[in-house]
């Protein structure tokens, strides 16, 4: 696999504000890569450096094998971008804006354009100033997908879309992936990334704090297991990797506990000794992944709980 995007040690400051502080990011060709982080963590700044709209202070950046600052125009012909907050020209219709953006990118597939407009239920005759935020977003999405780009850079693309359109968007990105395109999908909507992404990078305060496939990341977290047994469970708490054992219901002997990714087997073996009546396991969600990285911050703000005592999955 070749790398579609490689970033290492990227720094970018605006005046005294340090937006990116040694960020690393690696996106393989043909994968959907989730780019996660809270607001203000530097996702949009990174993307704008990848597009050559901002110049890196230091660090190495390559997109499709080229330097995005020096070769911006050649690069832009091979990629399509959807900003998180789309601004349209008040006097141009949505259809005109789609054509403008797609043709300046180097080409427009008329049939694909018509199909996308239909699927996203967009009225292309309205003037830019008459569109709601969701509709402005659709204009940019249609423009990006109607041209044949090998890399899609999407910065929180579905902000403002309703759940129905969100589903359409997921279908369309799935098709793009099937067609062999590379997608960088920035988001703070975890469920969306979970459904679409092969791999994710989590960034925080301008630095990548974790990167890998969802499977790899889950390995690092705990699965929550809720179990009802015929006889009361004993000796579970002393097993390695088991945390937060609690009895949920005294009458039925229902208990809940969290277990480290590599220790599930041992815990379940133990449970079989007591006769399992029912077992529910919650895989770790990205919310939990995020909480592991931002939990200290949340705890400091007085919201939620520290990650170690976290028992309830998202």
């Amino acid at each position, binding site marked *: 696999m070749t790398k579609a995007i490689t970033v290492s040690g990227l720094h970018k400051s605006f005046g005294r504000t340090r937006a990116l502080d040694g960020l690393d990011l690696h996106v393989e060709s043909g994968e959907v890569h989730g780019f996660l982080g809270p607001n203000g963590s530097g996702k949009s700044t990174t993307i704008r450096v990848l597009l050559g709209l901002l110049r890196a202070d230091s660090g190495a950046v390559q997109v499709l094998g080229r330097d995005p600052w020096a070769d911006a125009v050649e690069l832009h012909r091979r990629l399509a971008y959807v900003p998180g907050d789309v*601004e349209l020209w008040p006097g141009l219709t949505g259809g005109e804006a789609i054509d403008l953006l797609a043709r300046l990118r180097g080409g427009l597939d008329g049939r694909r354009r018509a199909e996308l407009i239909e699927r996203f239920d967009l009225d292309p005759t309205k003037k830019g100033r008459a569109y709601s935020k969701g509709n402005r977003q659709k204009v940019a999405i249609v423009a990006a997908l109607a041209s044949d780009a090998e890399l899609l850079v999407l910065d929180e693309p579905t902000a403002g879309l309703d759940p129905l359109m969100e589903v359409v968007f997921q279908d369309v990105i799935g098709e793009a992936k099937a067609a062999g395109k590379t997608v960088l999908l920035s988001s703070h909507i975890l469920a969306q990334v979970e459904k679409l992404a092969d791999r994710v990078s989590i960034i925080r305060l301008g630095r990548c704090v974790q990167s890998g496939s969802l499977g790899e990341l889950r390995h690092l977290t705990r699965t929550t297991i809720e179990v009802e047994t015929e006889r009361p469970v004993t000796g579970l708490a002393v097993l390695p990797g088991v945390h937060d054992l609690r009895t949920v219901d005294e009458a039925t002997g229902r208990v809940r506990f969290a277990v480290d990714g590599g220790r599930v087997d041992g815990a379940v073996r133990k449970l079989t000794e007591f006769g399992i009546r029912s077992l529910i396991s919650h895989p770790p969600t990205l919310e939990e992944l995020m909480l592991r990285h931002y939990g200290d911050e949340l705890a400091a703000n007085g919201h939620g709980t520290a990650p170690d005592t976290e028992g309830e999955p998202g």
Partner: protein
Amino acid sequence: MTSATTAPGTRAPAASVAGGNALAGTRTLIRFALRRDRVRLPVWIGALLLSTLATANSFRTLYSDPQDRANAVAGADSPAGLALSGPRHYLTDDGFGSILSHQMIGFTAVLVGLMSVLAVTRHTRAEEETGRAELVRSTVVGRHAHLAAALSVAVLADLVLALLLAFGLAGLGLEGMDLAGSLVYGFAHAAAGLVFAAVAAVTVQFTAHTRGASGTALAVIGAAYVLRAAGDSGENGALSWLSPIGWVQRSYPYVDNRWWPLLLCLVVAVACAAAGFVLSTRRDVGAGLRPQKPGSPTASAALTTPVGFALRLHRGMLTGFGTGLFLMGAMYGSILGDAEDMLAGIDEIEEALERIGGSGVVESFASMVMVVLTVVAAVYVVMAALRPRAEETAGRAEPLLATGLSRSRWAGGHLAVALGGGTVVLLLAGLGFGIAGAASTGDAGLLPDLVGAALAYAPALWVTVGVAVVLFGWFPRAVQAAWAVPVYAFVVGYLGQILRFPGWMNNLSPFGHVPRLPAADLDWTPLLLLTLVAAGLVGLGLAGFRRRDLDLK
């Protein structure tokens, strides 16, 4: 969490009082608007005040001898002179105050109107267009609070200017310029400001677009100026009575000190403001009274080229300025014939004109008019050249520059329209002036002369574009400094002739290097040099833009 619960709690009494009050929150919005305008309005007021005081003070040396004043008054007594200044009645008095009022009120009233219109649109339609008004209106703020606050801010600015002018002029201690006259002088400006602020209160209701709302109100100011110019220069002064600028000039400060024309302004202002409030209830927040028509679902091939796209964005402003300058040129052209007749009999003027360079009265007057037309064209050129910056800060450059469009081609499209459009606008001004001038003088040869004279200013316009581009490329936060070029050109080119500025001040302006056709001879050297300077500045500016970060939302 605690702060979030107490804040609404403390507001609760205000909310219950405000229940059905359409003006609730006005006072807060006024304070907020004044806070946002804390630099802008003082700069406006200071510039208007200082230019008036400096002009009045210069009279001390300029017209120290009563005979100079008499000459000045006699010199203004021509249709052309009256069209550029004000009604003839001022000429019955040759005091300092009369001369000042005659020369200045017409122009400063336009500028005060501009200040007032922009204040109103800035705090009403611009807020709605950006969606900020929606957020504010969702709080305890009444339906009419935004418009009321915007008008209050404009009224406040106008009144402060009026008082500063009144006491400033009276404080100069010029002979005959007493406080009573100075008060009328000051409030004449405020009255003009009020009328045009109220006009803007109506225009912001019609279109959903700030640019359109400001443009319509500015067109009303322009029409008011043209009406009074036509009325004052002709036999029949009735046209001037259709113009608020004509009214305030007819308060005759220092001559008759009449207050009632100013009351007329007040009545019209109140009526217009009331109409604005009523109309605002017939539309939704963010919408205009004029419904939106559906447009084309696809883009034409021309739209998707950088220049075609830029032309589309500039289209409205380009046609507006083109039409306006053509009409303005035609207006001056139509009085060109009278200029000769009226001035021919006055010996002093003829002698003075012979000293200038032996050209005729018509040519000298035409050169003077050309300066005014060029300054208006320069205003267009600055607005057009700053458009890429406006697109950039609005976040609309980002998606385009993420396509196969390079920064140079994107900015180049806008600049091509600024450079070419500026030239076209200038050509139209020359055509209007030339056609009407040739008709009024009966000299068909004037048409090519005047068109040529107008086009001679094109290289200076290009330099103006160049200055704006350099700021855009290297000092994007300071782009508004480009306005210094047309303002300076006006001060030096127009007022400088009255106030007799030294030559080096003229040379600082690109317009000062253009041969004053048709009075002077054509000299290609400065035109070629200006073109080279313009090309250098544009290249330098684009190089800066390629190097810098884009400003993103």
